[in-house]
C-alpha cells in the first residue's frame, strides 16, 4: 500500500491537444456536467436560500410571514455569547479529538505494523469502533458503558477509587470527546498504518546497520515519512469531526447547560427549539464564512498532500 495518487498524475491523454476543437472540448465536458450540475444545485441552492433568510425575520411558530430585517440577525449572532461559546467549544472539541485520535492512531499503527499472532484479527477489532453507527455508539456509551449505576466503565474503574460517577452530568465534555476519539482513532490508525507499510524496508535496514536505535530511527526516518499521511488523517478527520452531532445530541443533548453544545448542535437547537430560522440562517452564514476561511487553507494542504510523491514520478 503506497500513496501514489496525486493531482499531478499525467492525464491519460494530453489535457489540451493542440487544435482541440470545440466539438472535442464539449465531448470532454459532457460526462462531467450531470455530476457538476447536480452538486451545484443540491449544495449551493440551500446556501443561497440561507443567505436570503439570514436577512429575514422568520419564526416557525409565528403566523407572521418572513420580512426583511436588515442586519439585525447578524447583530444578534455577533453579540450572542451562546454562538461564540458554541464556536469555541466546536473548535476545542475538534482539535482535542483529532490530535488525541492521531496520537493514539500512530501508536496503534506502530503496534499493528509488527508481526504477531493473530494480527489480522486484532486489526479487525481495532477498526470496528469506526464502523459502529455513530448513533448506536453514542447511545451504547451513554447507557451500558457510562451509566452511573450499572455502567461497565465505573465497574472497571472501581479498583482505582472511582465510584458511581455520573459521567454524563459531571464530565460531559470529556465523555463526548472520548467517544469522538474512540470512533476516529481507527480511522487514523488505518491511514498511518498504510504509511508505515509503504516505508521501504531497505531504509530501515540501513539505519539498523548504521547502529541507529529504534527511537532515533522512528524520529528521524519514520516520522518524516509519515508526515503526509498524518496531515491527510488530520485534514479528513477534522472535516468529519467538526460536524459531530450524533454524540452531542444523544449523549448529553448539549448539556448540562451548554457545556457540550457545539456549533452543529447549536444550529440544530436554533431551528428546532427556538424556531428561529432567520437567526439560525445568519449563524449558518457566519459558520460557512468561517469554514471557507479554514477550508481555503485546508484545500491548499490537500493540494500539497496529494502531490507529495510528484517528485518520484
Amino acid at each position, binding site marked *: 500500500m503506497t500513496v501514489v495518487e496525486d493531482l499531478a498524475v499525467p492525464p491519460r491523454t494530453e489535457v489540451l491537444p493542440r487544435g482541440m476543437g470545440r466539438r472535442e472540448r464539449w465531448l470532454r465536458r459532457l460526462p462531467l456536467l450531470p455530476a457538476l450540475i447536480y452538486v451545484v444545485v443540491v449544495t449551493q441552492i440551500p446556501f443561497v436560500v440561507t443567505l436570503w433568510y439570514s436577512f429575514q425575520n422568520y419564526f416557525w411558530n409565528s403566523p407572521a410571514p418572513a420580512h426583511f430585517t436588515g442586519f439585525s440577525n447578524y447583530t444578534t449572532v455577533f453579540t450572542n455569547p451562546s454562538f461564540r461559546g458554541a464556536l469555541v467549544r466546536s473548535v476545542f472539541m475538534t482539535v482535542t479529538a483529532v490530535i488525541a485520535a492521531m496520537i493514539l492512531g500512530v501508536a496503534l499503527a506502530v503496534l499493528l505494523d509488527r508481526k504477531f499472532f493473530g494480527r489480522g484479527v486484532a*486489526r479487525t477489532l481495532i477498526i470496528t469502533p469506526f464502523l459502529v*453507527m455513530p448513533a448506536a455508539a453514542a447511545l451504547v456509551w451513554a447507557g451500558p458503558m457510562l451509566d452511573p449505576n450499572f455502567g461497565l466503565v465505573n465497574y472497571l474503574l472501581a479498583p482505582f477509587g472511582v465510584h458511581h460517577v455520573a459521567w454524563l452530568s459531571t464530565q460531559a465534555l470529556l465523555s463526548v470527546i472520548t467517544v469522538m476519539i474512540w470512533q476516529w482513532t481507527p480511522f487514523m490508525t488505518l491511514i498511518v498504518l498504510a504509511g508505515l507499510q509503504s516505508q521501504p524496508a531497505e531504509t530501515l535496514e540501513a539505519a539498523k546497520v548504521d547502529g541507529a536505535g529504534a527511537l532515533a530511527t522512528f524520529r528521524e526516518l519514520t516520522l518524516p515519512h509519515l508526515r503526509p499521511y498524518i496531515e491527510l488523517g488530520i485534514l479528513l478527520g477534522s472535516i468529519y469531526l467538526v460536524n459531530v452531532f450524533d454524540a452531542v445530541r444523544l449523549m448529553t443533548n448539549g448539556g448540562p447547560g451548554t457545556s457540550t453544545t457545539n456549533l452543529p448542535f447549536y444550529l440544530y437547537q436554533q431551528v428546532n427549539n427556538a424556531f428561529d430560522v432567520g437567526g439560525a440562517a445568519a449563524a449558518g452564514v457566519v459558520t460557512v464564512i468561517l469554514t471557507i476561511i479554514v477550508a481555503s487553507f485546508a484545500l491548499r494542504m490537500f*493540494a500539497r498532500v496529494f502531490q507529495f510523491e510528484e517528485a518520484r514520478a
Partner: protein
Amino acid sequence: MTATTARPGPRGVPRWVGTVGWGVLAWVVALIFFLPVLWMAITAFKPESAAETWPPQFVFTPTLSEFRLAITGMGPFLVHSIVATVGSTILVLLLAVPAAYALSVYPVKAWRDGLFFFISTKMLPIVAVIGPLYVIALHAHLLDSLGLLIILYTAMNLPLAIWMIRSFMLEVPNELLEAARLDGAGRIREMSSVIMPVISPGLVSTALICMIFAWNELFLALNLTVTNAATMPMFLISSVPQEGLYIAHLSAAALIASIPVIIIGWVAQRSLVRGLSMGAIK
C-alpha cells in the same frame, strides 16, 4: 524474525520475549478498543433484569427476547434505510463514473479545479443550512420522503466517489487503452470493454463506502423525516424510552442497526483505507 529464535536482543533479553510481549500488548490494546462493541453485543443477549445490575453480570443465560422486542416495529425503518442507502449509492455511481472519466481519461481543461470544487462542497457544513433546507423541502413537497434522503445522501457521497473512482481510472494500464484505440475502439467501447472491467472492483469498494456513510447518517434524517422516511438511526433513538429499564433493549437495537455496516467494513477492510483517504492511499 520468528518467535523461536533464541538470539539475544538488546540488553540480553531473548528476542522472543520482545516479540511475545509486543503481541500481548497489541492484543490488550485491541481488546480495549473493541470492549464497548463487545459489551453492546453481550448486553444485547441479556434479559433486561440482568442488564441493570451492580456489579455488571458477565455470566447469565443468554436470551433473544430483547432482539424479538427490538425488531417489532423495525420493519419500516429498515426498509427506508435500505431504499435510501441503495438508491443514493446507485445514483452516486451513475453520476460519479462519467465525472471521474472526464477528470482523468479524457480530462477537461480545468480538471484540477473540478476536483477541488467537488471536495470543497464536502467541507461546507450541512448543519449551517438545515433550516432553509427544511423550508425548501417543505415547498418542494419532499419533506419526510425517501426521495429527499436519496437526493441529499447522493450529494453527500458524490465528491468522495468521484475522487475514489478517478484514482481507479488512473490505474488502468495505458497499454490496454492504446491497444483498444489501435483496434479502432470508440470512446464508448473503450469505456465498456476496457475501463469498466478494470475498475469494477474499485466501483464495488466505492459503493461500499457510500453505503456505510448513508446507512449511518442521522442529522438529515432526524431533521427532515418523521415517519414516512425515518431510517435505522432514528429507529435506534426511538428504542430509548423516556423512563424505565432499557439498557438491554437498546443494546439489542444498536447491534441490529450497526451489524450490516460492521460486516461490510470487516469484509472490505482493504478498500476501506482507500475510500476513507478519498483514493489517496492504495
